[in-house]
């Protein structure tokens, strides 16, 4: 810093603008967190919120329109739709989160190894990423999902295993720039191991984009799972998921539209809220402070 340039000190009573402070400015993002938390809590606490079982067939009250007894109506077998949406949400949200975790871990590992070690290994890993990127994901998932009788775990696994490519590229880019930093050189000159440099000095500084990517991946995975379930390839009945409920609803869509409308609204709401959190998180983490 040259002489004559005034240096402004932040007055001591003003706290540094932390992540949460910047995030909090966006009311909608805060509301989104509340929406996701509330919906997750409701799904988790499903047995407390409803007097019905998700698979309790009641042939005396099939395909009833929404009423006080059945807030969202009943389906073809007289099962309470509200109950099924809560239980279905457990599976859908869990698959979304699990596959995002799998994809993010895999992508971060590939990206950081490629970026850190460079050279041939980098080349091999990145060309592999290019290949995985070029194959249309949804059609490939359709083929893979058709091989197995899907469970929640297997769905999360195959979706996660096919959603690491973007993270890998982003993390590699981050690692490439961070590893040139002076503090990394300092750590290396002090004799730190590769492992320590990567985990102590590089990855903590790349955590922002990783978290943003993971958040957006949750929303994406929920949509992918519901698309596969909609084609009949997802988690099999009687376990409800939002996708397979929509598949069931398709036949009676014209006469019983609520069976189609409510599960779709649930997907839309969660994915919208999750994406919004991811988007605002990105803004809040952006060191240049660009605000849209």
């Amino acid at each position, binding site marked *: 810093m040259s002489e004559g340039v005034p240096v402004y000190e932040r007055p001591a009573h003003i706290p540094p603008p932390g992540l949460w402070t910047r995030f909090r400015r966006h009311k909608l993002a805060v509301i989104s967190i509340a929406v996701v938390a509330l919906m997750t809590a409701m799904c988790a606490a499903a047995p407390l919120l409803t007097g019905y079982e998700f698979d309790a067939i009641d042939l005396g009250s099939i395909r009833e329109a929404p009423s006080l007894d059945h807030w969202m109506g009943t389906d073809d077998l007289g099962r309470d739709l509200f109950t099924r949406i809560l239980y279905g949400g457990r599976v859908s949200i869990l698959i979304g989160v699990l596959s995002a975790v799998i994809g993010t871990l895999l992508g971060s590992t590939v990206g950081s190894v490629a970026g850190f070690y460079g050279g041939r290994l980098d080349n091999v890993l990145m060309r592999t990423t290019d*290949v995985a990127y070029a194959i249309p994901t949804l059609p490939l998932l*359709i083929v893979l999902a058709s091989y197995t009788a899907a469970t929640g775990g297997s769905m999360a696994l195959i979706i996660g295993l096919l959603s690491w490519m973007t993270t890998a590229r982003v993390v590699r880019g981050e690692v490439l720039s961070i590893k040139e930093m002076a503090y990394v050189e300092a750590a290396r000159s002090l004799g730190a191991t590769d492992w320590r440099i990567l985990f102590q000095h590089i990855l903590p500084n790349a955590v922002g984009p990783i978290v943003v990517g993971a958040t957006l991946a949750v*929303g994406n995975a929920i949509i992918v799972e519901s698309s596969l379930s909609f084609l009949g390839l997802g988690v099999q009945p009687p376990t409800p998921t939002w996708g397979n409920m929509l598949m069931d609803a398709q036949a009676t869509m014209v006469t019983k539209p609520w069976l189609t409308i409510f599960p779709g609204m649930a997907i*839309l709401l969660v*994915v*919208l809220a999750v994406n919004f959190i991811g988007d605002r998180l990105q803004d809040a983490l952006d060191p240049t402070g660009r605000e849209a």
Partner: protein
Amino acid sequence: MIPLVFGITIVLFAVIQAAPGGPEGALLETGRFIDPEVIEAYRERLGVDQPVPIQYVRWIGGAMRGDLGISFSTTRPVSEMIIERLPATLELMGASFLLAALLAFALGTLSAVKQYSWFDHLGTGFSFVGIAMPVFWFALILQLVFGVWLQWLPVAGTQTVGATSVTDHVLHLVLPTVVLSLRYVAGWSRYLRSSLLVALRTDYVRTARAKGLSEVAVVCVHAARNALIPVVSVMALNLAGLFSGAVITETIFAWPGIGRMFVQAMFARDYPLLMGILLLGSVMVVFFNLVADIAYGILDPRIRYE
């Protein structure tokens, strides 16, 4: 590019090899009658008794000559079936691409010019909803509203039975096109908005205004020309994503294209057909990546490829 396609074929081959019971297992398992000649031809083509690498070399050799094998479900050559269905898919993808581009330009430009207006906020809200919307659910809702309740538009197929008019066909195209383009309208309009906002703050735009040019000329000619560069390359990249979207959209609207054939092939466990379509989809992705690179170079003279 060639190594990339080569890598893709290896992965696809491995995926099909991983089919339960092997690729020919589905044939024996279905219990349906399949021309023994087809089974024999397929066994011979794959040489299922041969080591896997040799099987792969045989398959790739055929694929390079345009021979993608014989379909289990129809006993016809896969390449013939794909070529038959390709026009319907290209029509749907093309129409969606055009619609998405037009709407995104209008929406993105207006949002940028009127930044922070109610229109801009509405546009932002719309694009968030558009991206979070499950494609198949959006399709169902449109079918319900415009097909069943309002009875304005047909919900399936390409033509009313017996009708041959172009109008009738175009009406059938409306809903699938809207469904397939939604996500891209949402995405591209945001891209255009942010890159226009940057362009509108540049010195050359101030110069253009100072010369007394109309606002339309400033925005649409001077600013847009540069703002479009990143958007066009995103559009070319997304063209390939349209292929994935077509699988769901065609299935719901009974649109007789490759996407619907893919889902049918999956249920019939018609592996040669699945493999052929996956290969075509991947080659499209690679091709549009190349188009994106070339478009970038043409639009931005500063970029030169070695």
